[in-house]
């Protein structure tokens, strides 16, 4: 590493020059940090400003710099100087725009922002990426249904070789069994031809795609770009090098034998939608009991769905399926009548057209919950919500139960390994502990039930420290967040699509597959050049573990939200770089602070905390430290500044990659330095988390529960350290959260450690 030549650039634009005395700030780097090169400029982001910095870099005056201007979240394209480390000091959003101009406290805040950034620079290295030399571009697609077939086609179209693995002897999955499909083309009124055979033919005609039927994945090891997958075809094992994996294992129907209360099993004429579909496919729609034609048919919606005793969720497609089947029945026999007993009919989007078509064709919709089904007299009694009374629907020829979808997030063909069926491995140990202060409104978390986990063995049988399963959400679906991070499982390089991710129909599955494939391709390409995938896209750093100091406590390998860290034979942590998403949770977990990133490490934040000037206890200027998650809380605070909301001038905000990366040592450093209060600001935790790194705030909450003892040993009040949940949309309420905490701290006596 060449000699470090730091420089400081202070911008006067956007009101910074009016709010603070820039001349005073300009003298600070030299007087306190012996940095001679400090330049102020009217607008650093202007072409002239950037040119001035570029010139200094080019002629070798500096090779690392602090840019004291706007938040590091903006102007990221302007302040890039290859080969030079850049640290940004936030003088605009969090000083000039959110504090009164010309105030003494504002000036102190600006000076502290500069001190923190210069200290940050002193611990920042230019990162060197961990590049995988022998990466593979082949994609593995697990599952040969609509999602899997589409995924394979999309990947092949993008120029990537694909290995498509199907556990049965033919492609098509469930969709090959359907007699027709719900409309997916305008005018969205007619039952359309099942075109899955064409899709299969296209896949078989594609040279880039290798299809393996009757094949199970028995073992998966490695990391994105270099997975080693063992496949078993007819008892013969085969090992393949794989770049990324798309899991499209689909779904299985909910076990109708559990639906005795809806008459399943009481009569051969009470069937599930799947059984009816088989009859419609062969064209022989007859009563199973006596072979008579079906004249009156009733569909019971939500059979075992949206029911706390069965599937708690809505499978979203059953309403459309029943409408399709009712239309097929009415179309084949003009005298037949079809009744659909529904609680709420869910026909999103264009399916509404299909629903209206069914009404026009005379399908009868009855709103109410089925109360009783009598298999003997073939009567459905339901509570009619519009009439406010029980209505018996007697003399039916067939009763169809519209059962829901269970995700194939486990493989029903593989044995359940009891030792591995622990909640910890499936949920990846999210543990919502005691309630904490929430800035927004939050509903109660979804209760986790073991029965929500589909039974079966692991799909990929991952050879990971954290177990063989792909972690699931509370309903048993394999995803990490339905809205924020679709397709991304909690295992980097493994992406889910189709009904294994959430219930969906054939059209949605095909769209989903394209999305997952794009994610998988990104993962391969990123692992090739050693940069992180979403959400820290482009990050070149990675956790470096100092093996000489490591105590083999295994906390990092257990707490990693993405199972990126394995253990070698001697029990030492072994980071799989391309599996890592750079959240720093391992760094926060490490009790000896030996896990570091090139531009983010425990020592760096320690130095930043210590750099600030703490006024003495008689000045009535308390100091509050906020460690803010830079994904949600820090942007929310920036947004509050952009909205010109003002907050306490006594807070000092340090962005952290994730609350999971916060070590208790930073808290004790701050308390010993003389900060009066410390607040951790992160995302919502629990089963309905919003944390970008799954469980960072949950982990921080657990760690902070242990801070009480530290406070007690220092004879400090426990109110001094707190935690708040802030979402990116909370820019209004975050100001109140900060000010309320500042009031609480103001009411306490000053931290007695000041000045020691």
């Amino acid at each position, binding site marked *: 590493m060449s000699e470090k030549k730091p420089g400081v650039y202070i911008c006067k634009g956007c009101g910074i020059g009016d709010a603070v005395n820039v001349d005073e700030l300009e003298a600070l780097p030299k007087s306190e940090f012996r940095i001679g090169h400090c330049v102020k400029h009217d607008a650093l982001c202007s072409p002239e400003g950037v040119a001035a910095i570029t010139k200094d870099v080019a002629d070798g005056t500096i090779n690392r710099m602090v840019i004291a201007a706007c938040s590091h979240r903006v102007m990221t394209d302007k302040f890039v100087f290859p080969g030079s480390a850049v640290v940004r000091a936030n003088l605009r959003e969090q000083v000039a725009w959110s504090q009164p101009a010309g105030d003494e406290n504002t000036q102190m805040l600006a000076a502290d922002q500069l001190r923190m950034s210069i200290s940050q620079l002193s611990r920042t290295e230019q990162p060197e990426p961990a590049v995988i030399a022998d990466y593979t571009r082949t994609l593995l697609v697990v599952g040969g249904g609509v999602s899997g077939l589409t995924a394979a086609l999309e990947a092949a179209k993008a120029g990537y070789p694909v290995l498509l693995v199907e556990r049965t002897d033919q492609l098509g999955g469930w969709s090959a069994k359907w007699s027709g499909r719900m409309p997916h083309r305008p005018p969205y009124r007619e039952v359309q031809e099942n075109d899955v055979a064409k899709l299969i033919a296209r896949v078989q005609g594609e040279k880039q795609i290798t299809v393996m039927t009757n094949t199970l994945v028995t073992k998966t090891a490695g990391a994105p770009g270099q997975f080693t997958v063992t496949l078993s075809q007819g008892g013969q094992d085969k090992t393949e090098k794989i770049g990324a994996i798309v899991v499209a294992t689909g779904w299985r129907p909910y076990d109708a034998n559990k639906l005795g209360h809806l008459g399943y099993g009481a009569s051969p004429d009470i069937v599930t939608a799947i059984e009816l579909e088989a009859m419609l496919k062969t064209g022989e729609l007859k009563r199973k009991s006596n072979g008579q034609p079906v004249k009156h048919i009733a569909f019971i919606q939500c059979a075992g769905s949206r029911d706390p005793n069965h599937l708690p969720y809505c499978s979203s497609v059953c309403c459309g399926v029943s409408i399709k089947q009712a239309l097929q029945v009415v179309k084949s026999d003009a005298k037949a009548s079809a009744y659909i007993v529904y609680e709420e009919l869910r026909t999103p989007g264009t399916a509404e057209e299909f629903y209206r078509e069914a009404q026009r064709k*005379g399908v*009868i919709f009855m709103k109410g919950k089925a109360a009783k089904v009598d298999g003997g007299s073939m009567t459905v009694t339901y509570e*009619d919500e*519009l009439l406010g009374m029980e209505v018996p*629907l007697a*003399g039916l020829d067939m009763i169809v139960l519209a059962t829901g979808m269970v995700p194939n997030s486990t493989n029903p063909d593989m044995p359940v390994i009891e030792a591995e069926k622990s909640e910890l491995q499936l949920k990846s140990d999210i543990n919502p502990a005691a309630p904490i202060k929430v800035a927004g409104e939050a509903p109660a978390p979804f209760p986790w039930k073991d029965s929500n986990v589909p039974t079966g063995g692991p799909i990929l049988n991952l050879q990971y420290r954290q177990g063989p399963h792909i972690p699931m959400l509370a309903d048993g679906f394999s995803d990490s967040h339905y809205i924020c991070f679709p397709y991304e499982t909690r295992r980097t390089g493994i992406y889910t699509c189709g009904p294994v991710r959430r219930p969906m129909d054939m059209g949605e599955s095909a769209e989903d597959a394209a999305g997952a494939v794009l994610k998988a391709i990104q993962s391969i390409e990123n692992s090739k050049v050693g940069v992180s995938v979403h959400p820290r896209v482009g990050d070149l750093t990675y956790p470096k573990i100092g093996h000489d100091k490591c105590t083999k406590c295994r906390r990092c390998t257990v707490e990693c939200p993405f199972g990126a860290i394995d253990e070698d034979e001697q029990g030492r942590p072994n980071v799989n770089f391309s599996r890592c998403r750079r959240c720093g949770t391992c760094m926060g977990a490490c009790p000896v602070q030996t896990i570091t990133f090139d531009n983010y490490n425990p020592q760096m934040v320690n130095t930043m905390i210590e750099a600030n000037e703490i006024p003495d206890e008689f000045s009535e200027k308390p100091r509050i430290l906020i460690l803010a998650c830079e994904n949600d809380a820090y942007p929310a605070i920036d947004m509050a500044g952009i909205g010109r909301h003002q907050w306490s001038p006594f807070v000092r905000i340090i962005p952290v990659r994730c609350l999971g990366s916060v070590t208790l040592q930073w808290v004790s450093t701050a308390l010993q330095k003389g900060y009066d209060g410390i607040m951790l600001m992160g995302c919502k935790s629990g089963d309905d988390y919003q944390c970008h790194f799954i469980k960072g705030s949950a982990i921080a909450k657990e760690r902070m529960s242990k801070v009480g003892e530290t406070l007690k040993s220092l004879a400090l009040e426990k109110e001094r350290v707190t935690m708040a949940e802030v979402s990116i949309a909370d820019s209004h309420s975050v100001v109140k959260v900060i000010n309320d905490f500042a009031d609480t701290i103001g009411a306490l006596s000053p931290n007695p450690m000041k000045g020691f």
Partner: protein
Amino acid sequence: MALEPLPEVTRPYDQSFTRWVARNVKGGDKLALCMQCGTCSGSCRTAVYYEHGPRMLFAMIRAGNVHDVMTSTTLHGCGRCYLCVSRCPRGIPVAHIIRDLGQKADELGYSIRPVGPDGQPIPDAGAACPTCAAAQ
């Protein structure tokens, strides 16, 4: 046009009665537009005094509850404020359907009359609304 005899309904939601209403009642063909939102019942000043609100009456027609519909006091309780007609989001002439259905019920021999708060039958004329009756 001669009034058709009432159909026999064999199963709930049998459409024969709905079709009878569509053919025989003025505005009855618009009934198919009803989406059961309940705006009519929410607007009706007199619904609280009678057996069913307009929404419920329409639901009963669809369900084929012939007897309950034809003997409902609602058929003769309309106060002619026409709020339901002006507010119906689907433009169904609710009050007109109810009034004409009441006439057809009379013709078919269902002579049920609502009774006011004073125990006297309410005259089937413009001022049937008991709110006004009480105010007078």
